[in-house]
């Protein structure tokens, strides 16, 4: 599960960063984005990438965690590159689905508290 979470976060991060590149903007966005949005996507992308590192460090420790993070990043980039080539329109759907799944995973620890509060 952690593997999927880290992979998903890397994928989202790289999707955001690829949207700042003029070559991919017409594939991902309806119109040319405003410069502020581009900047936001760039910083946001790097931030999400850094966030992806945290569960990797937690699961595997520092040295193996960094190695695993880099490895999963590699294949997230590869998946995105193939999607941009063959199925660019599926990227939005994938990203939204991933955000939903990651939110679920992140909120799962909170769900364990619910039974105590239910009548």
């Amino acid at each position, binding site marked *: 599960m952690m*593997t999927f979470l880290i992979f998903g976060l890397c994928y989202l991060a*790289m999707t955001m960063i*690829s949207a700042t*590149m003029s*070559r*991919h903007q017409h594939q991902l966005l309806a119109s040319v984005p405003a410069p502020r949005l581009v900047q936001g996507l760039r910083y946001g992308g790097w931030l999400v990438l850094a966030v992806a590192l945290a569960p990797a460090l937690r699961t*595997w*420790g*520092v*040295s*193996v965690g960094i*190695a*695993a993070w*880099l*490895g*999963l990043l*590699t*294949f997230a*980039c*590869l998946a*995105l*590159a*193939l999607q*941009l*080539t*063959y199925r660019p329109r599926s990227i939005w759907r994938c990203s939204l689905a991933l955000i939903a799944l990651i939110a679920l995973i992140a909120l799962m620890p909170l769900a364990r508290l619910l039974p105590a509060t239910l009548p």
Partner: protein
Amino acid sequence: MRIDHKPEGIRQSMSWLHTWTGIVLGWLLYVIFFTGTLSYFQDEISLWMKPELHRSVPTGDVDQTVQATLAGMHTLAPNATAWTLNLPTERRTTVAASWREPGSENAGRAGTKRAELDAATGEQITPRETRGGGFLYRFHFELHSMPRAVSRWIVGIATMFMLVAIISGVITHKKIFTDFFTFRPRKGQRSWLDAHNVTAVLALPFHVMITFSGLLLLMGTLMAWPVDAVYQGDRQAYNAERRGGGGGGGGDGAPRRGTRPMADAQPVDLAVAIVPMLAEAKAQWPGRAVGTVTVNKPGKPGATIELREHGSESLLSRGAARRLRFDAATGTLREQPAPAPQSAANAIYNVVVVAHLGDFAGPTVRWLLFLSGVAGTAMVGTGLVLWVVKRLPERRKLGRTPWGHHLVEKSNIAVITGLAMATAGYFWLNRLLPADMAGRTGWEINGFFIVWLASLVHAVLRPARAAWIEQSIGAAVLFALLPLLNPLTGGHGLVSSLVLGQLSIAGVDLAMLALASIFATIAAHLIGKARKTAAPARPAPAAPSAPVTP
């Protein structure tokens, strides 16, 4: 470098350098990458190649496995000075036991005896003799049938060429960020270059690590000068210092100490004694399994049992696992040796080298390393093909093919499809040669080289396009039939291995199917292309029934 000697920028000079360092030893680098990538699963391959061991199915009850194997060891090696039991893992379905007999202290590695024990019953299983995945692993850095010093130099030189190719490749890649996600298929040379760039850049951290660490792993051969200078030629002292202080690996057995107080003279029932020890290990290492059980002086007074953790948390200490040492008679926990702290230099070495070797890697990390190796193999392969494709216009203009182009084109086939067929042939022979045949190990390996040589001859004799198609089909068929051959020759087929949870055996079968589909795709693609280029040459038929293919 330019023939007309005009000045050129750094991107142009690095492009020249990248092409030459890449192509001169590219064929060897492909072989190194291919065998190296497979080596991440060398244990699984070895297991697949010993179908006798497939019947051992771990029950998941660690206590029962340990007790059964301790009983088995009593029968097998009652007088041994120490037993080491490597328990089943996600990679291994049997218990790998090793021991030393009394009087073998000075025999070195030859004094260690080994056996495979059934995980449920503790009985010894004798598999067929084979080098298994170890042959591919050794071939990866020592090649074959030449003195080790020579082959390590050859592989080392190729590795340095690779490092220079990586650096020059990065310098020359002008659009490294713009083209990060760019792959444009069906555009001939452009597509090959895109594929080469994508596999190279996206896995760049891995490629840099694997290449530099490859050099470090061969540093004893390639760069012994500082050692000889500083230690004044005393390599023994250097090796002793590396083993003792810096390396935190520790030994496999507990060091013998003469002043240990003797326990009572009754030999201990280890099967009973071990249960609370396993429970202690579970308590101390939550979520981690016991990897190895070592019994010192089994059946004698003063016996100790050491439990070692499976896998490790850190690459820095080179996977030195946590250990618990118990007195066998009383069951008391004596010590918990911790891994030694590492200096910065050693830590860097360890991290990089262990990442290369994949030692102690759990399934996720191991798969990431393997897939990165696949990307690396694809990087080299696309580079080799790109070199040929890029020069096709030049060949058409000349009206003939220069000998260098022939050489590269034919060796590409021998190395990309040929090596695959040789590997498949190695697996085929493993099952077809009788299990009790003398010298079968040598013949499995001979078969590997015979198939490889045949592929080279075939590539030389046939036109390039035909050779690619025929060998791709050959590789696809050979690999596709292996998962069928497996159960027919005494192994656990895909259905059995999946049902019984023997994922390592199933994984090898699935990987063979994956390889078969890759080569089938290549063959189908090339046949389709051949049909398309042949179609316009045929005169359009007068009958309206045949539509013109686009």
